[in-house]
């Protein structure tokens, strides 16, 4: 167990730190020092990569609010709510590779989106989203929100199940309307669940979009959809700049580690 984690997780992260200060092609490495970091942060491509990640982070509130709203709707105990839950959760079982292939058909120039626009008379817009840098990133963000919907919904439903029905009854007796119950009672009680979805959505945004980008855009057009994790792959494996990839790997590690620390902090203060 420790050998597995030590040899295949902890030792390589140490290597990543070491090689981040070198130029390395997988066989020979040459020590450069901390200047590898300044070089990296000064390169316009890398700045663009960080910008792309920041843009994707902007999609996170949407990826949380939509499932939160739907969870509140489902929670009003309608007939068939279990069926809705199963259906909404289904994409969680499907690979980002498959999701990506369908997403390409949706956003492509002759794809589903264009057909939809044609049928409502807006066909002249020709968004052709995957062909332009900004709109391609938006397409990736939309697909990301779609894929996170089920996971976050399940977490909110689990959270709603922990709330005692008596609290609602008491509020109703006091004459509180449906909306004020939601904003004054339900959402404050869901606070830690909202924090939890925020953290896992954030970590997913930084570490799990590789397959989606690989299939949908290949990081392009230009550097339009290259995120940090995709940048590491491209430098390491498409171009054999292993040292540069390691430097970017450390940046990613630091970001994810910081997010996880915040998460541990949150969990601890709640206990």
């Amino acid at each position, binding site marked *: 167990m420790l050998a*597995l984690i030590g040899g295949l*997780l902890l030792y390589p992260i140490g290597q990543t730190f070491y090689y981040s200060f070198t130029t390395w092609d997988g066989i020979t490495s040459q020590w450069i020092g901390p200047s590898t970091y300044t070089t990296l942060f000064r390169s316009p491509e890398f700045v663009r990569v960080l910008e792309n990640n920041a843009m994707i982070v902007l999609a996170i509130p949407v990826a949380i609010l939509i499932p939160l709203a739907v969870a509140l709707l489902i929670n009003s105990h309608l007939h068939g709510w279990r069926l809705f839950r199963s259906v909404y959760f*289904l994409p969680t079982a499907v*690979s980002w*590779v498959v999701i990506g292939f369908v997403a390409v058909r949706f956003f492509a120039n002759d794809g589903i989106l264009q057909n939809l626009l044609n049928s409502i008379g807006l066909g002249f817009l020709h968004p052709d989203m995957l062909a332009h840098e900004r709109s391609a990133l938006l397409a990736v963000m939309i697909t990301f929100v779609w894929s996170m919907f089920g996971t976050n919904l399940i977490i909110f439903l689990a959270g709603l199940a*922990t709330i005692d029905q008596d609290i609602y009854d008491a509020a109703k007796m006091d004459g509180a309307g449906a909306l004020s119950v939601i904003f004054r009672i339900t959402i404050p009680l869901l606070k830690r669940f909202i924090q939890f979805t925020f953290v896992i959505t954030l970590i997913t945004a930084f*570490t799990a979009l590789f397959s989606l980008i690989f299939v949908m855009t290949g990081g392009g057009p230009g550097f339009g959809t290259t995120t940090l994790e995709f940048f590491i792959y491209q430098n390491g494996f498409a171009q054999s700049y292993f040292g540069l990839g390691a430097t970017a790997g450390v940046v990613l*590690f630091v970001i*994810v*580690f910081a997010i996880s620390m915040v998460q541990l902090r949150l969990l601890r203060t709640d206990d």
Partner: protein
Amino acid sequence: MSSLAADRSHTIRRWRRRLTRGLIYLALLVTTVVMLYPFWYMADNAFRSLEQYQLQSGFSLASWRELFNTLPVGRQLVNSTILVTGSIALILVASTTAGYALGVLRYRFSSLVFLLVISSMMVPMQSIIIPEYVNLAQLGFVNHFYGAILVYAALGAPFSTFLMTAYFRRLPEDVIEAALMDGLGFGRIFLQIMLPLAVPAIVTIVVLQFIQIWDDLLVGLLFLQTPDVRPITVGLATIPSQHLLNVPVLMAGSLVSAAPAIIVYLIFQRYLIAGLTTGVGK
């Protein structure tokens, strides 16, 4: 207030409630369409030839034949199965024993070890993938199942151990004490009492890891580079580029690679949900 007015306000309230209910259903139905349409699209277009796809009429198995000529589908499904089975077996051995040691036996240093496990959960795969690749390439592990299995197991073990430890800690202590009184050793207690009790947690780990590993791209892409050893998801993602414009073939491939994970999901949904919500605590 006259009874007539009371009656009227009652009727209005009833209609308003019906209207809200109707609107909620409408919203949920729209969401259903958005979530299910991609699956419908796959199924609808996988059974067309390229020409039938362009015309959007008629069905045939032509694209399936082409898919099987392009990718070694059967071989790659077997590869995926070998990888998933091997990795999960390794993860289970590591996480149940470690969980037992950390959660029940509590040796010296066990809190330090637990901290190590937790912190290795925070290591993103992309940060270590380059040295990992170089190390395993030097050992000659690339393009062999056992290389990829080791990587999947290392990535899956920390969370699984965390889950097992938490589960074992929640079991009542008198179970173990009673067994000790009966003269059972810690090894037998583990095999005969703890493991059977841990079945729900074990199923959760199996389902989570099955879906994770079956759906993975990056590890397979790097550590299994020839089509013969590739799992199906990787095979589909790296389909020769002349087929990328052949939508029906792509959809047939998507369908066949997604099906096993969907089936597992439909059978074991409950455990998957349990696993995903573990982190929040109760």
